[in-house]
């Protein structure tokens, strides 16, 4: 019932390929994310970032390559419920809560894999089931409090304001007790103040909960501030990787975002090292 206490997990993505008909969305992609780090995947729209997330979490079966969690668990042949139980959780680019369930029920669904009551125990309401339900309810309340939603557990998820829905999605992901958390554009639609809070929150999350965090993000300020490593992908391929400083200076990255020759222009104009989020993402 309690957390598995295994600490953050590393992730190895080796030569993963995913095709949709003639389109190769992820093309022979290799990533290595050390345990306990905050790593970002960036790239223009349609570069294959979300497809990569879907491969890692089992929404899509990759056409080739392997994905290994913590050096031991091969994920690429598993269903997404099995992957979740190994300690991978995610949030979604366009929020996908269970809209007609209450906030607390959303979190309780996240706890599903950590509860073990069987059909018989549930029907006779055994002592174990009662204990487990009490624990789950308390845990769900704690998680809501942790993400700053205490007292909002009884409303339908659908009726929560946008920012609260993002938080609730985080709480639901945390409920699965992950070792690796995938965040797909956690600050989409947020203003500068909210984004700053989110940066603090992601750091705190990593430190408190012992997580590895893998981010997809378009907000370059956030990416550069928070990431310990960045991978840039374009047309499904990795085109650059390294620390924020190294990636920012890489001409291939600038080309991918702004087009061929842009790096040259920027250097001439001496507008290097300050790419803004607005310029990069329409």
């Amino acid at each position: 019932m309690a957390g598995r206490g295994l600490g953050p997990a590393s992730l190895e993505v080796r030569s993963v390929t995913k095709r949709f008909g003639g389109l190769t969305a992820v093309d022979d992609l290799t990533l290595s994310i050390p345990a306990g780090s905050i790593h970002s995947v960036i790239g223009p729209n349609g570069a294959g970032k979300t497809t990569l997330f879907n491969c890692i979490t089992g929404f899509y079966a990759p056409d080739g390559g392997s994905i290994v969690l913590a050096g031991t668990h091969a994920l690429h042949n598993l269903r997404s419920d099995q992957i979740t139980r190994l300690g991978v959780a995610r949030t979604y680019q366009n929020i996908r809560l269970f809209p007609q369930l209450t906030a607390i029920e959303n979190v309780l669904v996240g706890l599903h894999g950590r509860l073990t009551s069987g059909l018989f125990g549930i029907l006779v309401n055994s002592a174990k089931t009662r204990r487990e339900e009490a624990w789950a309810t308390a845990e769900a309340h704690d998680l809501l409090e942790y993400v700053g939603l205490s007292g909002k557990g009884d409303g339908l998820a659908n009726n929560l304001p946008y920012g609260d829905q993002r938080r609730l999605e985080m709480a639901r992901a945390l409920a699965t007790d992950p070792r690796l958390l995938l965040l797909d554009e956690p600050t989409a639609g947020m203003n500068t103040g909210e984004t700053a809070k989110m940066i603090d929150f992601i750091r705190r999350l990593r430190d408190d909960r012992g997580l590895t965090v893998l981010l997809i993000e378009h907000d370059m300020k956030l990416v550069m501030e928070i990431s310990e490593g960045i991978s840039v992908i374009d047309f499904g391929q990795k085109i650059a990787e390294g620390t924020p400083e190294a990636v920012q200076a890489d001409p291939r990255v600038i080309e991918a975002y702004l087009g061929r020759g842009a790096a040259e222009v920027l250097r001439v104009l001496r507008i290097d090292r300050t790419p803004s989020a607005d310029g990069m993402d329409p």
Partner: protein
Amino acid sequence: MMDQRGEWTRSARQGLIGGLVLILIALIGMIDAFTKRVIVAGLLDLSQATWLGIILLTGYLSAARSEDRDADGGVRRMITRGAFAGVIVGASACVFVAIGRELDLSWIFDKARPRLFDLLALDAWLQDVSGTDLRPWWALAVLSLAAVLGALGAVLALMPQPVRAGIERGLSGVIVLGTMQDLLIKTDWIKNKPFVREGIYETLFERNGLSPLGATIVFVFMFGLALVWPRGRAAYDRVKHYRTAKRAGRPVITSRHVGIALGAIFLIWFPFGFGNLWTDVFDTVGIYILMGLGLNIVVGFAGLLDLGYVAFFAIGAYTVGVLTSTDSEAELLVGLGFWQALPFAILMGIVAGVVLGVPVLKTHGDYLAIITLGFGEIIRVLAISDLMKPIMGGAQGVTEIPKPYDVGRLELPMLGSLEPTNQQALYYLILALCVVAVYITWRMRNSRIGRAWMALREDENVAEAMGINLVQTKLLAFATGAAFASVAGALFAVKLQSIYPASFGLLVSINVLVLIIVGGMASIPGVFVGALALVGLPELLREFEDFRLLLYGAVLVFMMLKRPEGLWPATIVKRELGRDIHGEALP
């Protein structure tokens, strides 16, 4: 400033709709059929109540939808417009009657006989009420009556909410008791207890319908009741469950517990008090409740639209039928008792649920509905086929299914000895199984399994990403639903003692689906309300039987437009749709 012209046009339109509805239900024969139900002796029968009720409702709606209320002189205008809408309904009826009396329409509409037009012109009624022969001026009389009633409807809409709710309750109380009179007198409780018969029944009722005094008493009683007990207070609260679970404490007795206890006492006393006719109807309702609870798990909780649900009902019925039949001419004679056969029926149901479930695991929505529809038909066709004839009896079905019990005399401490009839014993059997089914549903809903079902309904992919095993969860929903339906089928078989393929058509699946939609998706009390309203009422009021499908259609359209959450929704849905306990929309 209000758009006055728009308001008048709207009222005219409402009046026309009211008139068309009236003409429609007259042409299909409802008005005619309803004359047999007297509501208040010498004053009102059900056909007249329908006729006048439509005008009242039209007046009510014309005012209730108006935004004129706060404007200067708005109230007076609204009442005038109510009268106007009423007159339009009346005028439509008058035109229809005039045409019908001049031309013979009966070769197109076979109900359009002179008697119908006399009813619509309210000839007999106006004479009874006024004491004079108004027939020469019938049109004038109808129109002035319509104006008065339309205005009254508008006044009703203008009244404060509690008064309005009281009047609504009072009127429905009078109508319900009046229509149910001949059923009430058939109940043992009233027939055999002189105190009840002479003291209460004969005060309220005359030979045919409520007495005027009785109608007044019922109205006042219901009015008072509405003031002290607003609608929807007792609804179950899923949210509260989790809130109270956190702070564990001593259990507290609430009004809900008292309500449940009273309900339980009533249900146990019921077959002794109400007699065989009612018990028989409740048996049927109970069988539908069992099916409704099962389908509610599949459709309401897990969101898997199953249109072939009757298949599991048939499987349960045939398993018990074949295993227990004592028909010596049957080729297969097993001769088990009901209790030995029931586990097989449940097992067969579960197996069938899984067999259906496995191939449809990857399908959703429309596709799933079509596949399950086919599955339902396969079972029925198998039952009627030559292939299965040696076992299932083909079109002749399975007969001579014995009753499940042989109750002798029961010696009960304190209550003395009881000798339940077969009818009563069957009732208790169904009641007990319903209680078990409710308990199972309730336990499962508030557990990790129930939450997994609901997550599945909301978003299958995300549910899987929460660590929910889709295969197990879906199959468990299908299997549980199928088990409930096969128990219902087993009860159906021993209730009728013979079963035929014709009893297991698509209509059964649709009935069950409609009853959970009308009652309220994913709501356990909703299944009871839905089964009582859609199965119980047509059984009790036989003249409605012909119009059953029409009523289903009308009720469904109305529910989808006006109360998509159902009659007794899961509380959470009700709260979130912004209704307070009076059923009014919150600002």
